[in-house]
C-alpha cells in the first residue's frame, strides 16, 4: 500500500515539476515585459531583473503612452472591429453550421460535404494571396482605412472558424429536441433561435472568444488596409520602431495593454475547455 502511495506522489511530483517549469516559460516573457514597462532607459541598457532591487521603477513610459496620440484610437478600433466581426461571424456562421447539419443542400454538383469542406478551408487561405485584391476592391468601394472595411475583411476567416468549431457540435445535438417543436409547426428559424441556440451557448461563447482574439491580434490585413484612421493594436506595437531605434519601454507598455484582452479571453475560454466543443472533432 505504501509503495503505491509513494508511486502516486512520485508521479505527481514530476507532473508538478514539469508543469511549473512550463509555466515559467509562459510567464517569464510576460514578467519581463511588465517590468520593462516600468524601467528607465538606463535600466534597459544595463540588464536588470527585479524591481526596487536592481532598478528603480518609474512611470515615465506609462505616462508617455497615455499622452501619445493614436493609442486610444488604436485600442477602440481593435475592440470594435474584433467584437463586431466576431459577432456577425457567430450569427451567420452558426446558422450555416446548423444548416449544414440539418438540411440537404445541392448547388450544381456540390453537396453538403463539399460545401462544408469549402467553407472550412477558407481559414487556410494565406492572407498574402488576397490582400492586394482586397486593397483594390476596398479602394473602389471607398471602404479603405475604415472600420467597416476591416470588419468585412476578417469575416471570411472568422465565419470559417465558427463553422469548423460548431459543425460537429451541432451534429451531436440529438434531433429529437427539435422534432417535437417541428410537429407543433414552429418555423425552423424559431426552432434555431429559441431552442438550439440557448443550449449551445457554451460552445458559441467559446468560438466567439476564439474569433475575437484572432481578430484582435491580426497584423497583415490591418497593416495593408489601413493608413491612419482604422489602425489596430498590433500596428501600434509595430510603430514603436522609429528611426531612432526601438522604443522598448513604450513597446512594453503597449504590449501589456494589448495582453489584457488576451488574458480575459484565456480565463473565459478555460471554462469552456470541457464544453464538448473540441471533442466534437475527435469522435
Amino acid at each position, binding site marked *: 500500500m505504501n509503495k503505491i502511495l509513494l508511486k502516486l506522489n512520485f508521479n505527481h511530483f514530476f507532473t508538478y515539476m514539469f508543469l511549473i517549469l512550463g509555466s515559467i516559460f509562459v510567464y517569464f516573457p510576460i514578467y519581463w515585459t511588465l517590468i520593462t514597462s516600468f524601467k528607465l532607459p538606463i535600466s534597459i541598457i544595463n540588464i536588470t531583473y527585479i524591481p526596487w532591487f536592481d532598478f528603480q521603477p518609474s512611470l515615465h513610459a506609462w505616462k508617455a503612452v497615455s499622452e501619445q496620440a493614436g493609442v486610444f484610437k488604436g485600442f477602440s478600433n481593435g475592440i470594435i472591429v474584433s467584437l463586431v466581426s466576431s459577432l456577425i461571424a457567430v450569427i451567420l456562421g452558426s446558422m450555416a453550421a446548423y444548416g449544414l447539419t440539418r438540411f440537404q443542400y445541392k448547388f450544381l454538383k456540390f453537396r453538403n460535404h463539399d460545401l462544408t469542406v469549402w467553407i472550412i478551408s477558407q481559414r487556410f487561405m494565406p492572407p498574402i494571396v488576397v490582400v492586394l485584391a482586397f486593397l483594390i476592391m476596398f479602394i473602389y468601394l471607398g471602404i479603405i482605412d475604415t472600420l467597416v472595411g476591416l470588419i468585412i475583411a476578417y469575416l471570411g476567416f472568422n465565419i470559417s472558424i465558427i463553422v469548423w468549431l460548431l459543425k460537429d457540435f451541432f451534429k451531436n445535438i440529438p434531433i429529437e429536441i427539435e422534432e417535437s417543436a417541428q410537429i407543433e409547426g414552429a418555423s425552423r428559424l424559431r426552432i434555431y433561435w429559441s431552442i438550439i441556440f440557448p443550449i449551445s451557448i457554451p460552445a458559441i461563447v467559446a468560438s466567439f472568444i476564439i474569433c475575437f482574439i484572432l481578430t484582435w491580434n491580426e497584423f497583415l490585413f490591418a497593416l495593408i488596409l489601413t493608413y491612419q484612421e482604422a489602425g489596430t493594436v498590433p500596428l501600434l506595437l509595430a510603430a514603436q520602431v*522609429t528611426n531612432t531605434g526601438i522604443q522598448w519601454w513604450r513597446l512594453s507598455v503597449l504590449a501589456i495593454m494589448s495582453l489584457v484582452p488576451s488574458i480575459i479571453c484565456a480565463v473565459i475560454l478555460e471554462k469552456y475547455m470541457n464544453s464538448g466543443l473540441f471533442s466534437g472533432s475527435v469522435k
Partner: protein
Amino acid sequence: MFKFGLLLFSVLFLIPYNIFGDTIRGTSGEKFEGEKIVVVSISGDQGEFLKKVAKEWENQTGATIELNLIPFGELQDKVSVALSAGAYVGDILNLPAYMGGDLMGNGFIEEVPEDVKARIHWNDILSLYKQQTEWGGKTYGYPWDGDFHSMYYRKDIIENKKYQNDFKKIYGYNLSAPKTWDEYYDIAKFFQENVSELKYGSVELIMRKNQGFHGYISRATCYSKMPDNPSFFFNPDTMDAEINNPGFVKALEDLKSILAYSPPDMTNYGWMENVQAFVGGIAGLDIQWADVGPMSLNPEMSVVKGKVGFGMTPGCMKTWDARKSRWQTFDQVNYSPYAAFGGWQILVAKNAKNAKAAIDLASFYGSPDTLKKASVTGGSGVNPARFSTISDTSVWIDTGFSESDAKGYLNMVEDVLMHPNAVFQLRLPGYIQYQDALELAVSKALSGQSSAKSALDEAASKWNSITNKIGKKSQKRLYRASVGL
C-alpha cells in the same frame, strides 16, 4: 576661390533676408483658417519634428498640421500602394529622394510653382540636391535634407602621441585620419587591439533592409568610379549592371574583412545603433550620415563631444576601369564620396485635399531659415542642403561645436558636396528592387552564405532582369540623363 564665392553668395542673400522678413519663412502670407494638413513621415523624432518646427506656420495661417507617421520599414510600401490605387494618404509626403523615379515620373506629385521657387531662394540649394528635386525637366520636390556619407574618427586618439608612436612601430607609417580603405583597416585593427578606450575598431551600416545598400556603396565607390567616367552603377551604353565587376567584388571582400574589427552584432545595427556605437565611445571609426556631428554634442548619449574628427570617406589607390576592363593605379588617392540616400524630400501629393495650404507649408519647410534650424537639430534627420546652411558657422557654434570643430565639419560637408568624382543616389524607377537585390547579396556574402563574387553575380543578373522588366530603353535613357550623358 570657392570659399570666396560661397561667402559672396551668402552675403548677397543676407540683404533680401533683412528687408523682406517673411520671405525667410518662405510663405505666401495667406491664411488657411481651420484647414487641416496631413503630413506623412516616419515615426520617431524625424516625423515629430515636422510638426514642432511648423508651430509658427500653424499660428500664422490658422491651419492645423496632423501627422500620419509610419515606421520606416513600411513607409515606402504604404505610400506606393496607396498612391498606386488612387487613395489619399496625405497632403505632404516626407519621402526619400530615391522614390522620385517612381513617384515624380508618373504624375503623383504636384509641381513646385515658379513663384514659390523665387520665394524660397531656389538657387541657394546645393546643386547636388537641386538636381534631385527635378524629374524630366520639371521640379517636383522641395528641399529638405541633403544626404551623403562621410567618415568620423576619434580625433583625440589619433592625435595622441603615445598611440602615434605605437602605431608607427607596428604599421610603419604615421597615424592620421585614414585616406584609403587599407589604412582604414589598419587603423580599425589598431583601435581594437591597442587602444584601451575603445572596444571595437569601426562601425558601418550593413544591415539588410536597413541602409546596408548605402553602407556598402560608400565603400564600393572608389573601387570602381573613375574620375573621367560619369557612370558607376550601370554600363551607359548597354545598361548592363556593373555591380559584379572586380572593383565591386574587391570592395565587398574588404568589407567582409573589417567585420573582425567591428561589433559582432553589427548586422543588426540600424542608423541609430550605428551612431550610438560611435558617439557612445564604443567604436573609433564610423561611416555615416552627417547627423553624427550634432549628435556628438548631445550629453544624453555622447561621450565624445569635441573629440570627433570629420573627413571624406576613404579613397583607393587602385580603381577598376570598367571601360578598359583593367585596374588603374593612381599616384594620388582617388576619392569618390557617395551622396547616400539622396536625402529626404518634401513633396506635395497630387491628390492632396488642401493643395494651396500644402504648398504653403511645403515652402515653409523648404525655406532657408527652417532648413538652417533643422540641420542643427539632432534627430530631425536633416543634413545641410543649402549653401546658406553651410556657410553660417554661427548656427553650428551655437549648438555646441567649438569654432574649429564647426569649421572642420562644414569644410568636410563642402568638400563632399562639391567633389567632382561623387556618386549620386540612384533614382531610377524600381529603385527599391535594385536596392533589395544588392542588399541581399551583401548580406549573403557577409554571413558566409555565398562568396562575394557569386553573391554579386546573382545580384547583377537580378538587376538586369529588373531593368528588362521595367523597360531597358527607358531605364537607359533615364540613367544616362541622371549622370549627365
